């Protein structure tokens, strides 16, 4: 998929995510945010030539390099993506209960990633 395809798909899944609500859907939102992050993250990797359009990185932990070795303009987005991955581990893949912190940080991390993509598009 091209960077534009990934951004379009991220928007689409983000709209799906907005049909859900905290606290009752906190697991689904924490998990779904990772999928939006996947598309935004890969859009940035393609845009900066880190990965070809035929390749993809599922998660920050599966990247072939540390975040501080990525191009500077996308490091903040990847830090946010890494936080989303940690939230998935803590809430979805571990015993968990909803806490109010989750509600704000998920959307904040996604906004950081969306901003990075917007900056790329608007130059």
């Amino acid at each position, binding site marked *: *998929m091209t960077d534009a*395809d990934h951004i*379009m*798909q991220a928007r*689409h*899944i983000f709209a*799906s*995510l907005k*049909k*859900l609500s905290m606290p*009752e*859907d906190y*697991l*689904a939102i924490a*998990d*779904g945010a990772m*999928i939006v992050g*996947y598309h935004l993250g890969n859009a940035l990797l393609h845009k900066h030539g880190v990965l070809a359009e035929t390749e*993809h990185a*599922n998660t920050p932990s599966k990247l072939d390099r540390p975040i501080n070795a990525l191009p500077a303009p996308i490091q903040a987005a990847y830090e946010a993506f890494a936080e989303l991955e940690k939230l998935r581990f803590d809430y*979805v*893949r*571990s*015993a968990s209960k909803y806490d109010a912190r989750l509600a704000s940080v998920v959307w904040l991390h996604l906004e950081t990633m969306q901003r990075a993509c917007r900056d790329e598009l608007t130059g």
Partner: protein
Amino acid sequence: MKISEHLTKADAFERSATKLDPTQDTALYVVMLLRAATNRVNAALHVLGTTTEGAATPVKLGDLNHTYKPKLNVPVPDELRAAFKNLALIEDLRTDYVRGNKSADTALLNAWRAAYAAIRHDTDPIVTREHP
């Protein structure tokens, strides 16, 4: 995770899935099916003693993230063979429908729902058993 936690999570993902339109929200819908199904299979594996709900050991694995990860170090129990096959079917949807951007028609969505229903059919009787 504890068996009860897996079942609580499976129920929560199922409830969230009902708020989505599978035709419009296909990617997220697939993820909900996948998580609910994985939690149900994990709970069943714990009840059968194939894996442990406690801390994993070199002999006995804990939770599986997927049918293949971590790879089970013992045979899949006969009672769960079909559930593993159906879970693998749902896992395989990720490439095209979650990480890709394909859309699904009614026939496909019905096939996915059937795979999930079959997982419930196979795991429900197991997870309601008394277990150690």
